[in-house]
């Protein structure tokens, strides 16, 4: 479903992605772990065409992202949900308008049906009471939930999460993780999750990839990754163990 092969990306003299390769199967959840500034978000932006890799191949749902025209890229993007780190809700619109904007710009929907779809999506993430509120009136956790609901509104086959639990308290983080697992179970979506929390990655993902200095240095189930002898992976695990 997602096939990343030898992707390179540099900003000036700074190489951020240095030959990243990764495969995500349909219906699978893969978490990408790494330190802040290791290029996780850059990789995600390359996947949806917000950034163009310098070299390498990215195939999403069978299509080569780097070779698509603008119109073809838009077609592909309709099948992808993207949850931003800070939710990126449109602050001049209410929650209802945020969701409606995504839906009505792509298809004609009768007002009653539109209200029903929006309510269902908000109910799925548990924030239906926030329907008429503006993003500034919501807590960080609620904003993330609305961000997820907005990503779901076009019923995507793939969801990309950029640090979905960062900046949240442990209880809210756990609720968001539960929600992500629930979505996977109910909708069967393929998910790629960027995170720096090993506990979170272990809980929500089928496989974990560790990104270090622009390369994937470990990839597999948690127990497989834990056995990797790469110094960074061991250091990461040790740091988490100390925290725990």
């Amino acid at each position: 479903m997602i096939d990343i092969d030898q992707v390179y990306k540099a900003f000036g003299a700074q190489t951020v992605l240095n030959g990243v390769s990764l495969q995500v199967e349909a219906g699978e959840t893969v978490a990408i772990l790494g330190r802040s500034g290791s290029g996780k978000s850059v990789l995600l932006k390359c996947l949806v065409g917000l950034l163009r890799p310098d070299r390498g191949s990215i195939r999403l749902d069978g299509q080569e992202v780097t070779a698509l025209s603008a119109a073809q890229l838009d077609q592909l993007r309709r099948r992808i949900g993207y949850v931003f780190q800070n939710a990126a809700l449109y602050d001049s619109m209410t929650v209802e308008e945020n969701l409606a904007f995504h839906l009505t710009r792509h298809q004609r929907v009768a007002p009653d049906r539109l209200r029903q779809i929006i309510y269902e999506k908000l109910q799925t993430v548990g924030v239906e009471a926030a329907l008429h509120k503006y993003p500034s009136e919501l807590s960080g956790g609620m904003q993330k939930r609305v961000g997820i609901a907005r990503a779901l509104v076009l019923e995507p086959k793939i969801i990309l999460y950029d640090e979905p639990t960062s900046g949240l308290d442990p209880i809210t983080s756990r609720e968001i993780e539960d929600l992500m697992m629930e979505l996977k179970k109910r909708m069967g979506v393929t998910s790629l999750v960027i995170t720096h929390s090993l506990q979170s990655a272990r809980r929500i993902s089928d496989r974990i990839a560790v990104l270090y200095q622009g390369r994937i240095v470990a990839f597999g189930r948690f127990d497989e990754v834990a056995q990797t002898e790469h110094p960074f992976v061991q250091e990461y695990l040790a740091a988490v163990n100390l925290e725990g």
Partner: protein
Amino acid sequence: MHDVFEQVGRYMLFVRQFFRSLLRRPLDGLETLRQTHEIGSKSLLLVGVAGLSIGMVLAMQTSSTLARFGGRGLLPSMIAVAVLREIGPIITALVVSGRVGAGIAAQLGSMRVTEQIDAMEVAALYPFGYLVRTRILACLIAVPILTIYADFLALMGGYVIMFFQQNISLKLYFDSAIRFIDLQTVLPAVAKTAVFGFIIGSIATFTGYYTRHGTHGVGQSAMIAVVLSSLFVIVADVLLVKLTLILFG
């Protein structure tokens, strides 16, 4: 210097993208109307006060000079020609570039740094059309309308002064004012204001849309939008006046 040429090149591409976007659906007509209303309502008070004041000042400053040459009767015509041809368009454009240009750049800049524009992009919502095209078109529509409004208030301002100085009737004032006004005076002036609207809208959206470096960048974008759009409005005015003189004499 290299950076300046790079920015000019990017601006040219941005303008080309705008003209291409006019053919792309959805056309966002309602959003364009909403933005036009927003620009109009934001600027109405300031443009109105500026127009009224300019008309009054113009009448006060020139009436004694004209009286010295026995030409006081020409005052309404002089005010009308000066206001309609030059002062109304340029004052309106400068007020709008300060009031609206900064607002547009700050709003789009803030949306850029909080990833709201990226969110539209990855959902294939065509943010350029929704955010940029609508605002440039709104400026194109609003600036000429605001100019007509400012012109009218400037003429009224001139009338107020003349009423107190010479007790002139409104009908006589306007009859005298429009004596030297014809289509060759009005049309180039209105066309000029549309160009000013385009300059303000395109520069403000360009600086806002490509904002970088967080909240500091938002402030910078707003400042650059005001400075550049005011500067280009003034330069364009000189060029357009010259062009009008070549075309219409």
